[in-house]
């Protein structure tokens, strides 16, 4: 987790808000550093995390997690982390007929089905154990990333339904959090992706948007981060707050600064 980002979001692992949907979005840049941040953040907060990793392998997250101070292998062994490795599972599903319903069953179907098996997997992973003692604080669902589901033949509506079910279960019923990453295709005219992004933007409580710089590549400023809080319950004045920062990614952390205040420029 990045300490500076925690400060910007005014949160720490001990006292994070619950029952929230956070939307991570990237446009013209790679927003995966935000995924790494939230993964390590919630593992440090002692939450039960279900990570649906569709685009990268387990070892990738594990190696970066070590740089950020969490061990995914150990978290998985002690049951704190349930990791669905999409790439490996896809190979299993496509090449061998599965006896039980598999979370990625839709890969074998010709028509766009629904994501019910995936939701069942998530629910099974995050349901509280009835052993009496509460080992973990609250459950968290992390998805990296949702746009891949569109590439795999799912419609935007099916993905929105899936997130709706997940929110109802994880956020409302289990008082946990959901964090998802969606790419913003910008001017690539990806209508399905736009529908998905807009739909999620309206549902989420916090939107973190990583954008590339408008003028192009810069060695010292890797991009711009827009933070948007949406609090529907508050009066209109305090409802939506938006901040913009610029960032530079380093080997083990990310530093944030106000626009134009990059240390390289000052």
């Amino acid at each position, binding site marked *: 987790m990045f300490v500076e980002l925690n400060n910007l979001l005014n949160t720490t692992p001990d006292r994070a808000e619950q029952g929230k949907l956070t939307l991570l979005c990237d446009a013209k840049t790679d927003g*995966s550093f935000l995924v790494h941040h939230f993964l390590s953040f919630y593992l440090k907060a002692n939450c039960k995390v279900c990570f649906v990793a569709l*685009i990268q392998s387990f070892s990738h997250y594990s190696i970066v997690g070590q740089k950020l101070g969490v061990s995914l292998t150990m978290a998985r062994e002690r049951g704190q982390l349930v990791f669905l490795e999409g790439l490996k599972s896809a190979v299993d599903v496509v090449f061998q007929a599965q006896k039980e319903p598999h979370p990625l069953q839709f*890969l074998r179907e010709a028509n766009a089905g629904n994501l019910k098996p995936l939701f069942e997997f998530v629910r099974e992973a995050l349901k509280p154990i009835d052993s009496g003692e509460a080992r973990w604080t609250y459950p968290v669902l992390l998805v990296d990333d949702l*746009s*891949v589901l569109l*590439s*795999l033949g799912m419609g935007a509506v099916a993905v929105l339904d899936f997130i709706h079910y997940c929110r109802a279960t994880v956020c409302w019923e289990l008082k946990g959090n959901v964090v998802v990453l969606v790419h913003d295709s910008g001017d690539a005219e990806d209508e399905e*992706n736009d529908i998905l992004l807009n739909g999620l933007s309206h549902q989420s409580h916090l939107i973190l948007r990583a954008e590339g710089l408008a*003028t192009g590549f810069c060695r010292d400023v890797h991009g711009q981060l827009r933070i948007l809080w949406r609090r529907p319950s508050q009066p209109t004045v305090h409802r939506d707050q938006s901040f913009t920062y610029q960032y530079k*990614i380093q080997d083990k952390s990310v530093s944030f600064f106000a626009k134009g205040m990059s240390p390289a420029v000052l």
Partner: protein
Amino acid sequence: ELPAPLLDDKCKKEFDEDVYNHKTPESNIKMKIAWRYQLLPKMEIGPVSSSRFGHYYDASKRMPQELIEASNWHGFFLPEKISSTLKVEPCSLTPGYTKLLQFIQNIIYEEGFDGSNPQKKQRNILRIGIQNLGSPLWGDDICCAENGGNSHSLTKFLYVLRGLLRTSLSACIITMPTHLIQNKAIIARVTTLSDIVVGLESFIGSERETNPLYKDYHGLIHIRQIPRLNNLICDESDVKDLAFKLKRKLFTIEAGVQWHDLGSRQPRLLGSSNYPASASLVAGITGAHHHTQLIFVFLVETGFHHVGQAGLELLTSGNSASASQSAGITGMSYRARPRALYFKENKSKVGARQLLETREEHLSSRLLILTQAERLCMGRRFFTAFHIFNELPCKGDCICLQTCQTQ
């Protein structure tokens, strides 16, 4: 040790895919590289000239037959396979892709690249080359129609291929004719599903073919994506503008356009149809000046942006409201990448038409490169500024003032 050429059969116009095993021990690579063609007719990889950027190969030589026979390679030619009655699992991919995936998976399994059968000899990496993925030759119709029936086939294929590569010791390089794909969303999705994406943009058929600025080059290379694998950051090179040349034996990639070589070029206003008119307008503005210096503005772009258009408007409109135009340029350039603006200085008193004819002589004079957009002003204020530059001790080469648009 340089890697051997991956494909030597681009000269044969067969659309087959070859899988090579090379005996080079390397660390664990599981990546996918997708090349994209844009208007490129045919390409060969060859050795490089003096200013190289990367590895090089000699296109005129073919791979020795002994090497091909000695190494263990597998070929996949779809028309042969499609007729055979392989048991095909029900899947929503087009049959061509399904067979290809099964083929690759069989090789990975049998040759032990995924750890199932331990490799007996020294460990190898499986290198896969797929040509023209997405074209109708693979049974896909995304190049034919905008919303074909198989619009998800290609992306699903890439996803499963990515999974295969991540779980085995292999790397794959794919070429894709994206200039034929009509649905731009698919290209964006393909980019996300790949690790490294390089775009090749050929000048053939575009307006740049006749642009003397690009006389020696055949196209541009755009590095669209570099992966961040096992890391938060990636190793981006500082060089963003790459151009390539394709000769009989050589395939050269050059970093940027060597600005100081442009002294011998003939810059021309990009896409300008009323060229003499604009030149005369410029001449008109400068008529009052003592030295009759004519300044041309060339906006060289690395991509198709509107910065060039703004430059043309500046020159072709004859207003004296040049301050606003310069503001326009400034506004444009802030939105674009750091651009280079060229000023050509012409010392003698020539009219527009003569200027066109005697371009070459004058180009050998100083070529000034100014990249600060604020100084672009066609009024008197600009000329004074230019004068100052003129008197700087520059030796016939260019003075390059780079403004990086850091925020």
